[in-house]
């Protein structure tokens, strides 16, 4: 089996005599037997740690849950700085979780959570922060400050939770560079290994925003900007 891996600016070809293994298994074989300098991140091998996200043939995958195919072209994630080979620096992207205040603001005491309540954010709380959605998101080409798909899904995860007593504050935080900056292209949904749709979560957050008195700023502007809501929080 032959694959090519993007290293610095060029693609390097590797050939290994194997079939029916994951891309991570293949990369590990290359690193330990052919080329010790090949650099990638990995951890759990079972799709929960989010370390080994990368792109294969222009599509984000977890190397540990993707069966490698002959001729695959492997590259690092986009929209994040490449540290070396397939390893990227996630710090700036993860910082959007804090900017979006993606946490439960109030401490919940003895609240009953029903099975229905639990289902509201069950899938969203499966997020492994692999950054696949962040890499696939086209908004970063025009707005580097966009809070982004995983941080907004995380906001939904908390804002929708019955245990959050101050839902309004969650909504206030995501008006600037947030829910209205998404193009609803759905790329994030397609690449998520956990079956999360950030696009849908963003739409739900938009509904909550409207209920909280906010509106789409581009929509407002096209009508002369007469709505004048200023919910921009200061970070």
């Amino acid at each position, binding site marked *: 089996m032959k694959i090519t891996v993007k290293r610095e600016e060029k693609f390097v070809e590797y050939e290994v005599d194997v079939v*029916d293994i*994951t891309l991570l298994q293949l990369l590990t074989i290359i*690193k*330990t*037997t052919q080329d*010790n*300098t090949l*650099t*990638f*991140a*990995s*951890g*759990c*091998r*079972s*799709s*929960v*740690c*989010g*370390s080994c996200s990368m792109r294969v043939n222009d599509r984000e995958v977890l190397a540990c*849950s993707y*069966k490698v195919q002959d001729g695959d072209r492997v590259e690092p994630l986009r929209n994040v700085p490449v*540290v*070396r*080979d397939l*390893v990227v*620096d*996630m*710090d700036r992207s*993860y910082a959007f*979780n*804090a900017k979006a*205040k*993606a*946490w*439960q*603001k109030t*401490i*919940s*005491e003895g609240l*009953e*959570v*029903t*099975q229905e*309540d*639990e289902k509201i*954010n*069950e899938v969203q*709380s*499966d*997020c*492994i*922060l692999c950054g696949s959605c962040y890499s696939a998101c086209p908004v970063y080409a025009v707005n580097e400050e966009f809070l982004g798909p995983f941080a907004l899904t*995380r906001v939904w*995860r*908390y804002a929708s*939770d019955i*245990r*959050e007593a101050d839902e309004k504050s969650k909504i206030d935080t995501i008006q600037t560079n947030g829910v209205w900056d998404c193009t609803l292209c759905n790329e994030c949904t397609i690449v998520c290994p956990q079956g999360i749709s950030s696009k849908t979560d963003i739409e739900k957050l938009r509904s909550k925003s409207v209920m909280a008195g906010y509106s789409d700023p581009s929509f407002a502007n096209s009508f002369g900007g007469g709505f004048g809501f200023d919910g921009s929080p200061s970070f």
Partner: protein
Amino acid sequence: MQTDVLIIGAGGAGLVAALNAKESGASVLVITKEYPTRSQTCMAQGGINAALGNAGKDSVEAHIKNTLKSAHGLANEEAVRLMCCEAPNAVKWLDSIGVCFSRTKDAKIAQRTLGGASAPRACYAQDYTGLKILHTLYDRCMSEGIEILSEKYLLELIKNEDGCVCGAKVLDIRSGEIQNYESRAVILATGGYSRIYDKNSTNSTASTGDGIAVAARIGASLVDMEFVQFHPTALKNSSILISESARGEGGYLLNSKGERFTNELAPRDEVSRAINEEILKGEDIFLDIRHLGEEFIEEGLPQERKLAKLYENIDPVHDLIPIRPVAHYTMGGIEVDKNSATTLKGLFAAGECANHRVHGANRLGGNSLLEIVVFGKQAGVNAAKYALGAENTECFQAESENEKYQLESGKNEIDFYEVREHIGNLFYKNVGIVRKKSELQEALNEIIDIKSKLHLMGVSDNSKVYNSNFIEFLEFQNILEICENVVSSALKRDESCGAHYMEKLS
């Protein structure tokens, strides 16, 4: 800049410690060799034990009794009592900060039975319990403004002139620079050492016992290192964990003839031995959960289904799952007292790297997530108390020491990756589920031999930037030290006890 409390490791124990040290008034800094959400904690599936009685009658006393029984006399009853009594509070706290637990029909936290438990006691979140706890703790740390620095590899702990631990020397993986972080107290929360068994382990490749090896190097005592838990059900070819909840919910273990051969819900050491015995007879062993039905499997064990399909090309709804026992959790670790303080002043430890003597010779499923919350808190509170009361002494900086971490190329006559794999297989066979004195001695001799050849091994990558070849070589050296310790401890314990099972002489 000096922090009050430096926490090394950002899994569940490290993050709980950080939150509690901060709440106690200390300034905190967390460093990790990965990213916080990539820690081993995310792999915990089964649940977190607390005698809430939400799914059937239970009591704290029963939890204590079950834990002590499984520990085979090696646990400290006082520590077990504290952990089990605190368990309901620990779960209540996790619930209060937003952990998405599964729920019962009457809006309580759902609980299920794991091996060795007399009641359904493990609170769970589908089979993502660890993942959801870890991510919620991470979000909580963000909300508290706790600084976490990722991709910094622990090289050594620094002592001041009085011999107190006062910081750490780390390798910044991204830049290749060596950095010192000074603090008044240090908490190690660096995880276990199951990866000494290399591919024969369910664990993340990061579980190389770094913190334990580093602490031992400056004189911290380690206890009960020979106790390694082998999880009965890992996928045969990939060592990927199939949660104990699969058996807890009614899954069977079958041999090639389709016969059941053991009580599936006995503690892990017993079940692993029963499987091992069958394998030695030439049987293939399977987990059968087909009778639980697709709906149940999809709701309660979605990860397992996905992983079995990926790695074994089978669907547990219709097929038997091929399994074997592999190393899963290490009970041994750094000796700590009832304040989570190690034998070195200024150094605290929590989580799998520490030995709080709550698991003894065999840990019960659901007690490790509990341990990281209860003792993570204890370590955080006590390290903060110590740091805030400590005199402000200068850290003694040995810059010249940095030279030994410089990359040297050309020492590559023996490939350490091959040796690492060889040791993993050797330990699985000789220091595994059933042990013999002669085989233990053979393993020890081999480790000593390999250590003597260490100067012939090295890295071939000479990049300063993100040199994972170098990091893996550093981890390999920790593995060697831990291996020697594990097998030496095993040789000293002649009798069978829990997970340390010596073959009876016939």
